[in-house]
């Protein structure tokens, strides 16, 4: 069944209703069972979900779908505050985190979720290959189900990222009984969880069709069917929005989305600030890399003209950041390397006496990344460095950057998917002894690790901020990975067809958060 087809039906329906003179009465009335019956919300996006098993899905495009299907213990609101989900309440009892698990969660197949589902799922997630959450919860000692719908996670010390990290899909609750019996296979695309929707069908690169979970604990979703289509080009997304074959779209960081949408009638646009950010990495490990010399790294960090970058590569629509501090926990202005200083950087490069000024830059495929790399190339030229860009697909990029030790590159340009808590990604991804995959180009720095461990595992309350500030200052000064700016997304929807309120901030790429409350206007 196609949404296109239904689109026509909807129009016909409007005509019929208008003829009966009932239009004014019908529109705007919420929860009209008749209206919701059979209604379909169609969403378009640029990227395709490639990862299927939620516990090893490391690509954010997968989360778009998984968020609608799977619930985690907790969730995050627009301000990254932890909110109840599968767990209705929680408290720290010493170093043990105790959750109260809701008793009305039901999988889409009608089976009620049990405590066993929760414990087995969490253990499964943490053991899953490539799931980095083991790192975040590294001082965890046991996950235990207790009487009266209580779940305890014991730690052998404080853990300041534990709670917010449990909001991720990577630690969601899956139907473990069905997995054991073979009824459900996490490696297929038939996603099923306790969330508002479950997957009905999927055509790779084309569309996901999701059906409402009638047993959803948050109340039956207002729209029966959600179709998520992959439309790889922004213009085609716009065209689809105009002709009504989709009701809403995410432009995935395309900075020109508002311009593309200009003049289209009945379209509402929402800017989503995200926790994703662009960065460059310099190889401070591989023999022969010019970036073994710290002053060269600092010179590169110093030459970056972020304002120009944001103006041109992002059409002015990106968040300025010098460190990893965009959440306001720490103070950006105290970082040692901030505003561009071309003269000083140039002098540092000259002093470094490099054998060649040519530097090979590995850029991950993508229009925006390519634009970012070109702006950087021009900045670096001002201090006498010649960046040679090499735009490669994700597989080559990952192999040469992360899959090889030492990394087979001198410099990389890429984007990190952001998570809710700054400590989750910046801090941990940064320490090679923890993140492991960056070992090939990031040297270990005991001073940093100490500051990080202090912030995550030893501090409480107000002590976190100074440790974190110190860690970020070290990062900034070391200049192995340099953040450029944070990304924004644009969500656009047909205001004449759907009522929706996308999250203001996009935590964990949950671009369809609240989808169960979206309502078709007919």
């Amino acid at each position, binding site marked *: 069944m196609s949404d296109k087809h239904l689109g026509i039906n909807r129009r016909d329906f409007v005509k019929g209703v208008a003829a009966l003179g009932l239009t004014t009465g019908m529109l705007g009335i919420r929860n009209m069972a008749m209206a919701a019956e059979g209604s379909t919300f169609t969403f378009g996006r640029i990227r*395709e979900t490639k990862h299927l098993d939620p516990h090893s899905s490391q690509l954010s495009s997968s989360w778009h779908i998984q968020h609608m299907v799977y619930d985690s213990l907790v969730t995050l609101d627009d301000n990254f505050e932890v909110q109840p989900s599968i767990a209705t309440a929680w408290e720290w009892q010493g170093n043990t985190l105790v959750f109260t698990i809701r008793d009305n969660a039901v999988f889409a197949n009608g089976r009620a979720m049990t405590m066993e589902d929760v414990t087995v799922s969490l253990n499964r997630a943490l053991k899953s290959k490539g799931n980095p959450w083991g790192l975040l919860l590294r001082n965890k000692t046991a996950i235990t189900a207790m009487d009266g719908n209580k779940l305890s996670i014991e730690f052998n010390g404080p853990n300041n990222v534990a709670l917010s990290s449990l909001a991720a899909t990577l630690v969601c609750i899956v139907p473990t009984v069905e997995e054991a019996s073979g009824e459900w296979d996490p490696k297929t695309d038939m996603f099923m969880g306790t969330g508002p929707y479950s997957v009905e069908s999927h055509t790779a690169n084309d569309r996901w069709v999701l059906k409402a979970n009638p047993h959803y604990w948050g109340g039956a979703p207002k729209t029966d069917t959600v179709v998520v289509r992959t439309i790889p080009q922004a213009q085609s997304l716009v065209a689809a929005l105009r002709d009504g074959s989709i009701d809403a779209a995410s432009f995935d960081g395309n900075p020109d989305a508002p311009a593309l949408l200009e003049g289209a009638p009945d379209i509402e646009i929402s800017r989503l600030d995200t926790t994703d950010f662009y960065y460059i990495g310099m190889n401070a490990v591989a023999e022969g890399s010019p970036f073994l010399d710290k002053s060269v790294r600092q010179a590169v960090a110093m030459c970056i003209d972020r304002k120009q970058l944001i103006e041109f590569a992002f059409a002015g629509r990106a968040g300025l950041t010098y460190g990893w501090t965009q959440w306001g926990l720490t103070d950006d202005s105290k970082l040692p390397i901030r505003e561009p200083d071309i003269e000083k950087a140039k002098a540092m490069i000259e002093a470094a006496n490099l054998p060649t000024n040519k530097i090979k830059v590995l850029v991950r495929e993508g229009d925006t990344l390519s634009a970012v790399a070109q702006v950087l190339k021009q900045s670096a030229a001002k201090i006498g460095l010649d960046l040679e860009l090499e735009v490669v697909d994700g*597989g080559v*990029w990952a*192999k040469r950057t992360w899959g090889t030790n030492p990394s087979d590159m001198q410099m990389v340009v890429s984007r990190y998917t952001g998570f809710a808590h700054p400590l989750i990604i910046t801090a941990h991804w940064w320490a090679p002894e923890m993140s492991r*995959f960056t070992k090939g180009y990031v040297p270990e720095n005991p001073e940093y690790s100490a500051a990080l461990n202090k912030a995550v595992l030893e501090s409480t309350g107000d002590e976190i901020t100074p440790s974190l500030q110190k860690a970020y200052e070290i990062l900034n000064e070391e200049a192995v990975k340099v953040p450029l700016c944070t990304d924004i997304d644009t969500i656009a929807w047909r205001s004449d067809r759907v009522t929706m309120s996308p999250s203001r901030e996009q935590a964990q790429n949950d671009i369809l958060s609240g989808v169960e409350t979206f309502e078709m206007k007919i």
Partner: protein
Amino acid sequence: MLFIAARLGLAALTIAGVATLVFFGMRLIPGSYADLFFPLASEADREAISIEYGLDGSALEQYILWLGKLLQGDFGTSLVTNKPVIDEIVQRLPLTLELGFLALMIIAFIGFPMGIISGMFHKKWTSQVGRHSSTFLMSIPNFVLGSLLVYAFSVNSLGLKAGGWAPLSEGLMENLKYAILPAFTLSITGLGLVLATARSSVLGVIGQDHILAAVSRGLSPKDIFSKHIFRNALIPVITIFAIVAGYLLGGTVLVETVFSLDGVGRLLVNSITRRDYPVVQIGVILTATAFVLTNTIADILYGIIDPRVTEKNDG
């Protein structure tokens, strides 16, 4: 008969060559499925994943294993979607086939008559227009034309859609709205080619003695056209047509990209970047088979039309 068997044998050999080339080509690309999809996993974990997905062992071992399964009719499973490769391809085949078919129709019903007209009136301006426009049509890269159409029709759509798709099940008219522009884009090179071929073969026929003789015998222009010109022009065009048909099936990559269509071409491109080896392998083999078979059939037909070909081959 022997000739046909021999041609089919050669076709099989060619396809086997393509299969080998694509298999090892894909393995030579840096970054495996595990690197791409489990980038944060440790080296040991990635190895475990490789074993899980049957990607361990040397390329040669994998090749032999794969070939064995292939010969038993096991086309494998997509690494990414975990569905049978054949399902993934069959799902997209209607779109690609329909585009190819429509493009061939456009070529047959526009290019061929235009070529004949251009050749018949070889002293008039129509012929020059035919000559130059065939060169021009062959000079437009189809993604340039496609982009142009996407631009033109997004502003003023005339009821046609530049991008997206409605399957035939939604009605022919609805389907054509979406299919016309990409099919036309796809046809452009073949259009020029057939126009040029038809034109030059008509020109060739017109100058020949038997046409002059027919004219002097007082044969009516209609008969001259249907008995001599049309038939003689058709033979080379059929040949070209087969080539174009083979090429179209594998040539939709760019058109599908420009019009955001989910066809076999895009599936292949996406599968390369996702290191979905089984899909790429089977997709390329199928495309090559389509190409080789159309050419082989044309070859055999040609052998039937022109017996000298078979004679030569039978020694």
